[in-house]
């Protein structure tokens, strides 16, 4: 098999993420591509429709604060034990982004609908909630099975690009994702997939059945870029923990617009820190 030119420089790998595109990213503990996120902020991407599957923390807050996001679709944004996500909260209160509030399994199902090539997926729950009330794009039907009870249908989410960080990839574009199988669903659902990885694995990940079991095939992968500690200051499962000190620093600085600008200057634009 020919090795396609999948492994690229980070900036080149990120080119498919154009202004206005529908970008899906994983939750805060599943391999968040923070180095790539900082590169996107530096490049000044605009008007993203950001889907965080199913929640986000620093990544969404940073992109929102830097003015990269037009629409956010997710179930929650929070810095967890470091407090609320300050730029997210400010953007909601200031009405500078469009918010599509969801609930976690709704986003998983909507991505799985795209993965399966069906226009929608049903989901239990939601009936009688204001989450449903404010989602004009979600429909309710009476289930044709059972007692004709109401059930919500969620339209498929088909991202232009899926972007995540993973432990390793090979030169064929195969990416080892381990137990974070929602990353495979994201890739299946998206038109293009970009992965940043800690390192390049020699050989073909699909050749070893044990490794293959945790591998997203390169067939789905547009670009791979190597970013050591590419999730920092967020964790990479089984590899490194969150940098709590830095997250606390972010929470403090991002509490004001001025502090956030200073944070971006120092930790995003200064290449030494990126």
């Amino acid at each position, binding site marked *: 098999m020919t090795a396609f030119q999948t492994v690229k420089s980070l900036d080149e790998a990120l080119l498919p993420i154009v202004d206005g595109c529908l970008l899906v990213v994983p939750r805060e503990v599943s391999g968040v591509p923070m180095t790539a996120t900082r590169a996107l902020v530096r490049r000044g991407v605009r008007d993203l429709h950001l889907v965080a599957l199913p929640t986000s923390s620093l990544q969404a807050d940073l992109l929102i604060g830097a003015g990269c996001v037009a629409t956010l679709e997710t*179930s*929650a944004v929070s810095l967890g034990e470091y407090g609320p996500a300050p730029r997210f909260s400010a953007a909601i209160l200031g009405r500078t982004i469009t918010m599509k*509030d969801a609930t*976690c399994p709704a986003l998983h199902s909507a991505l799985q609908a795209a993965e399966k090539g069906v226009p929608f997926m049903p*989901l239990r729950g939601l009936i009688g909630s204001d989450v449903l009330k404010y989602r004009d794009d979600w429909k309710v039907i009476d289930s044709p099975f059972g007692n004709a009870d*109401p059930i919500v249908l969620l339209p498929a989410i088909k991202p232009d690009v899926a972007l995540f960080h993973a432990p390793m990839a090979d030169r064929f574009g195969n990416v080892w994702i381990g137990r974070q*199988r929602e990353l495979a*669903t994201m890739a299946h659902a998206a038109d293009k997939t970009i992965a940043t990885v800690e390192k390049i694995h020699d050989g073909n990940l699909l050749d070893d059945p044990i490794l293959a079991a945790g591998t997203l095939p390169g067939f789905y992968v547009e670009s791979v870029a190597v970013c050591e500690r590419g999730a920092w200051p967020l964790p990479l499962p089984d590899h490194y923990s969150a940098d709590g000190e830095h997250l606390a620093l972010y929470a403090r600085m991002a509490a004001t617009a001025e502090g956030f600008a200073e944070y971006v200057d120092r930790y995003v634009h200064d290449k030494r820190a990126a």
Partner: protein
Amino acid sequence: MNATFRPEELLADQIAQLIGDVRHVAVGNASPIPATAALLARERGNGRPYVSLLGSPKNTFWTDGARELFDCAGQGRIDVFFLSGGQIDGQGNINLVSVGDYDHPKVRFPGSFGSAHLYYVVPKVILFRTEHSRRTLVPQVDFISAPGASAGNVYRPGGPVALITNRCLFSFAQGRFTLVSVHPGHTVAEVVENTGFDFDRPDTVPETPPPSPATLKLMREVVAPQLAELYPQFAAHVFGVGIAAFAG
């Protein structure tokens, strides 16, 4: 410290009793007291219930990605879960989204997380809010992340069974809360004063019973070290247990 106990220990003991004899308890992120209760129940049950602590690789079995928790709940394989709310009202509705008009909010919370699914399908949802005030326990939530009850034709095998706060324990049934007991050091009058919604109560409201010495011993000596992996600050603060205390 054996003769007395901390408020967190009282709450964890009460929650462990609410959990009852079930197969699987799952605890969301940032919930150290429910996590303590679940681990306590597991110790008492000799490995039953299964306990899943989100965020703890040692205490979660998921291998099918972030969706597995919700699929598992949808299958009826999660018996107990815990939810909180920026606001909780007397109908058991919870609000994790915002205060004020949704389109022009005054306060924004993180978001509904999985509540709009889990509240419907997990048979025993235990509501948990350590700030018991008229700000948090309101007549009517401003945004319903998930409702306390549903119409008869809505698929709803799950829902709230109790609400525990820093002041008291309520049970929940037929769309209303009932005061079950008031924690030591608190009063019924204080509960009424600080609760924004109506609730039922018996003529005499008992005091929440303290944890037994055996329970305290189990919590402090067996549960606390397990907890420290995920909640080191909490374990140190409440139980005086640090990572160093049981490393190696």
